C-alpha cells in the first residue's frame, strides 16, 4: 500500500517535471534524448562533487588554518 503511494507520488513528480520543462509536448524519442542528456549531466556533476569536494575542503581548511596559525605565531 505504501509502495503504491510512493510510486504514485513519483509518477506525479515525473509528470510535473515533464510539463514544467516542456517535455510533455515533445515526441517520445526527443523525450528520451533529453532525459538521457540531463541524467548524464547530473551524473557527471555528482561524480565530480564526490571526487573533488573532500579534497577541496581539506585544502581550504589547511590554507585557512595556516593563515590563522601564522597570525597566532606572529602575535606571540
Amino acid at each position, binding site marked *: 500500500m505504501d509502495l503504491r503511494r510512493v510510486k504514485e507520488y513519483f509518477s506525479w513528480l515525473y509528470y510535473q517535471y515533464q510539463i*514544467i520543462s516542456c517535455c510533455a*509536448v515533445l515526441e517520445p524519442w526527443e523525450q528520451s534524448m533529453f532525459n538521457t542528456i540531463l541524467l548524464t549531466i547530473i551524473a557527471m556533476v555528482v561524480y565530480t562533487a564526490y571526487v573533488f569536494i573532500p579534497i577541496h575542503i581539506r585544502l581550504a581548511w589547511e590554507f585557512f588554518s595556516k593563515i590563522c596559525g601564522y597570525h597566532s605565531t606572529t602575535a606571540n
Partner: protein
Amino acid sequence: MANPGGGTVCNGKLHNHKKQSNGSQRRNCTKNGIVKEAQQNGKPHFYDKLIVESFEEAPLHVVVFTYMAYGIGTLFGYLRDFLRNWGIEKCNAAVERKEQKDFVPLYQDFENFYTRNLYMRIRDNWNRPICSAPGPLFDVMERVSDDYNWTFRFTGRIIKDVINMGSYNFLGLADKYDESMKTIKDVLEVYGTGVASTRHEMGTLDKHKELEDLVAKFLNVEAAMVFGMGFATNSMNIPALVGKGCLILSDELNHTSLVLGARLSGATIRVFKHNNTQSLEKLLRDAVIYGQPRTCRAWKKILILVEGTYSMEGSIVHLPQILALKKKYKAYLYIDEAHSIGAVGPTGRGVTEFFGLDPHEVDVLMGTFTKSFGASGGYIAGRKDLVDYLRVHSHSAVYATSMSPPIAEQIIRSLKFIMGLDGTTQGLQRVQQLAKNTRYFRQRLQEMGFIIYGNENASVVPLLLYMPGKVAAFARHMLQEKKIGVVVVGFPATPLAEARARFCVSASHTREMLDTVLEALDETGDLLRLKYSRHKKSARPELYDETSFELED
C-alpha cells in the same frame, strides 16, 4: 401636538430635518475639473467609483521555468529543423520550391520557426470543430492525430454536452431555434438569405433602416450605421475617418482590426501603454506642442482608439479620465465596444453606462453584434453628420455586401429583448444574471488562488498559465477528462511568457454549471500546480488611483 418622529409639522406639511444629501455636491476629490463638469451636467457620476482591477505578477520561479521551457523547445526546434534540412526527416511544413532556394527566404523568421516547432506540437487544442449551437452546452467532434498534429482525422465520435466556457455568448442569445425566433423565420420567407448587393447599389433594405434606428435608440445617440462584418467595420471605416496628416493614438493592446484600420488609413500612429492615462496625456501634450514631425504644423485630427473591454486582459477602459483628457486637448475618441456592448453596464448599454457618462460625449461608438447578440456584423454610431458621412464615404458601404436579412432580424429581436420592448423583463434579467455570474466566478477563482487579470466586472476572465507544457496539458485535460471546453491562448496573441486560458462567462450558465467548472478548475489547478497567486484569501483589490494627473486649466 408632540411629534415623536423628530420632524416638525408646519403648514400641514411634514418637513424632514434630515436633509437629503445631494450626491453631486458632496464629493471632495482632488480632481477639481471633473467635479465641476459633473455638477454642470447634473448627472450622477462615478468618478470616484472604485475601479478594482488586478494584474498580479507571477512568482519569479514561474517566469524562470517558463523561459527555460521555451529555451528547451527552441533547442529541439533547431535540432528538428537541422534534421529536416538535411533530409534525415520528412518535412511536413511549407518549404520553398527548389527553384526558389536562391531567393529571399520565406520561412526563416521567428514566427514561422515558432509555428513549425512549438505551435505544431500542441496544435490539437485549437481549431476544434463543433457540431451544435454554441450555447452553454455544446458538442465537440472528436479528432485524433497519427503524426503528432501535422494531420488530423475524425474518429466519427462526438463528445456530447461539453460545458462551453469559450464562446462569446455573454447573454445566451446564440442558441438553437426556439419560439421567440419566429420572426426570423418570417423574414427568411420574405427576404431570403442573401442581399446580393452593396449598400450603395441595391443592398439597403428596410430591415437595415429599422435596425439602424433601433441601434441608435438603444445606444441613446443620434444615428447609427450597420455593416456586415465586425472586423471590416473597424478596418474599413477608420481609413474613411482619418488620413494622412492626422494622428492616431492607439492603446498598446488594441485588437488587430483597429491596428489594421489605423495602418490602412495612412495616419501617423503612436502607441500608449495599456489603459495608462499618464502615457496618453504625455503623447497628447507632445502632439499638441510639437505638431507633425518635420513641418511642425498642427495635426489635422487627433483620434484616440481604445476598446471598451479588452478581451485578452479582461480590463475595462478608464473612460472618465480619457474623456477628460479628450476635452482638454481637443481630440476625438473612438471606442470599440465589441466585448462590452450588451455585457457591461446596469442595462447592458456598454461602458458609457457603466461609468454613468453621456454617450454623446464619445465621438465614435463602434461595436459588434457577434458577442452579445448572437449574430454577426458591426455598427458605428454617433452624431448624425458623422453617420451620414460614413454612409457616403465608407469603403465597406461601397464595396462590401450588406448585412443578411435574417441576421438583421436576429439583431432586432435581441435588441428588443434586451431593451424590454417585447413586453418582458427577461432581457434585463439576463444582463443582471451575467453580472452576477461574472462576479461570482471571478471571486471564486481568486479565492482558490489562481492569478486572474482584469476588472472585476468584465465577463472575460483570463487565467494565467505561463508554461507552454501546462497550456497543452490544461486544455487537453479539461476537454477529455472534465468535458469542459476552454480556449487557451499563447504567443503571439499574448506576450511570450504570459500564456493564459480565457473563460467567457455567459448569462445562460446556471449556478450548477459554474460550480462544476470551478470544481474542475480546482482539481486541475492542484494537479498541474497552477495556483500561483500570493494573496489567497484576503484578495486586497488594487485601487486605481491617479493622483499625479493634472487637469486644472
